[in-house]
């Protein structure tokens, strides 16, 4: 079959489309799309509502978009706000605005500079949070880096976990190879400002269980911490520690029982 050149759609003002296959889809006003959409490029500067699934190479949301189905995309940038009722499958995701995803998120690189909330599980090679992320399920990634705020209701499982505490971070369980939790020393203007408004929040990590090979923890509250080499820094409150090779505890840390296994 001869493949015809794909067309573009551009909706400026208010318009509707039944979906289909396109090269470029651009929404500058308000758009309602009733079916599935396949395109190379999706760009929304206004508001868009898509009732079906979308498959695209790039998606850039500068306004607000609601996807009722699944989103499959190579590169997605969210500068405005996005709601996805289905799953999100992407290679690179950048959230600079706010987004809420009801399904799972699967990706290679996930950068959150704004705020993201995920009802399902997150799996990726790299998760980098400099804003806020909330995950109802598990988060599995090779590297998890947080300079912001996170709340994970399930398991945070990563090769390297590097957390610089800002406000209250939380995960039910944390497991990995190298886990570092530190409180930032430098108080930049922005952080001072944030602290001023969020004065009732202390910089702290809470988890039930933290397990890993090499752990360094500061200002961490946990029921159980298990690992090979463990270093407990200032501000920790841990009920029970099980270690294999070595254990170092800062004077100001509160530790219940400790056992070498």
């Amino acid at each position, binding site marked *: 079959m001869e493949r015809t050149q794909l067309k573009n759609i551009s909706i400026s003002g208010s318009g509707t489309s039944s979906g289909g296959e396109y090269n470029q889809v651009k929404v500058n006003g308000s758009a309602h799309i009733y079916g599935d959409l396949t395109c190379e490029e999706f760009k929304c500067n206004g508001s868009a509502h898509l009732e079906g699934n979308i498959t695209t190479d790039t998606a850039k949301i500068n306004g607000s978009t609601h996807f009722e189905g699944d989103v499959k995309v190579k590169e997605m940038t969210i500068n405005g706000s996005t709601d996805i009722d289905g799953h999100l499958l992407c290679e690179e995701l950048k959230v600079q605005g706010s987004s809420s995803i009801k399904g799972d998120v699967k990706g290679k690189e996930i950068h959150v500079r704004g705020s993201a909330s995920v009802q399902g599980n997150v*799996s990726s090679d790299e998760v980098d949070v400099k804003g806020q992320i909330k995950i109802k399920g598990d988060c*599995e*990634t*090779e590297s998890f880096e947080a300079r912001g705020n996170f709340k994970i209701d399930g398991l945070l*499982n*990563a*090769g390297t976990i590097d957390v610089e505490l800002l406000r209250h971070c939380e995960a039910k369980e944390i*497991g*990995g*190879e*190298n886990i570092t939790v530190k409180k930032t020393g430098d108080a930049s203007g922005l952080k001072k400002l944030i602290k001023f408004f969020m004065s009732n929040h202390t910089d702290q990590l809470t988890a*039930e*269980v933290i*397990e*890993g*090979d090499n752990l360094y923890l500061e200002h961490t509250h946990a*029921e*159980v911490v*298990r*690992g*090979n080499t463990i270093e407990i820094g200032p501000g920790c409150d841990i009920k*029970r520690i*099980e270690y294999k090779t070595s254990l170092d505890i800062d004077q100001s840390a509160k530790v219940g029982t400790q056992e070498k*296994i």
Partner: protein
Amino acid sequence: MENLISKKDLLEEANISYGQLYRWKRKNLIPENWFIRKSTFTGQETFFPKEDILLRIEKIKTLKDDLSLDELADMFSPSPTLTSLSAEELTKRNIVSNTALEMFNNVHGPTKTFTFNQILTLYVLNSLLQTGDVNRTEGIDLLKLFDENEQNVKNTGSELIFIRKMGVSFFVLTPEPATLFLEPQAKKIAHYKLSQCMEELKLKLS
């Protein structure tokens, strides 16, 4: 109740670290449903089905030098690999015997190339014939059973059990884990976990 092992005991017995266990979980080398959460005096703990997990870890440890973690995950995954092999290839590589092939062809008509699921059927049949657990007629019954329940065989997590009572024999195909209570005269001749057969087969095919 199945024989369970706690995470702590598992690490010690298998001689692996937390990091390795979590890495393998991340890579889907260990199925999600093997992580069983239970309450203990130190709060929630994770337990595993002992035999399955120890066997799996043993396999990962012996194979991880030759295969990448992704390749391993592929091998352990319940979805079939996309392979189809010819009859000559199957016998040449010693995966199934001529007898099994001949029986398969008698039931399904002559086939030149086999899909992964067909190879799995052949593999199980071959293994049952080799051990002498089933005879030819029973083997044909097995082929028919697999044929009629293709969907169930595909979505593994199935177990195949072969029972004989006073010379009368039959197959049972049931979801995993199977718990069967047999009357005293009935004898369980063979018991296969299809997911394990699939792993063995994938290893042979790779």
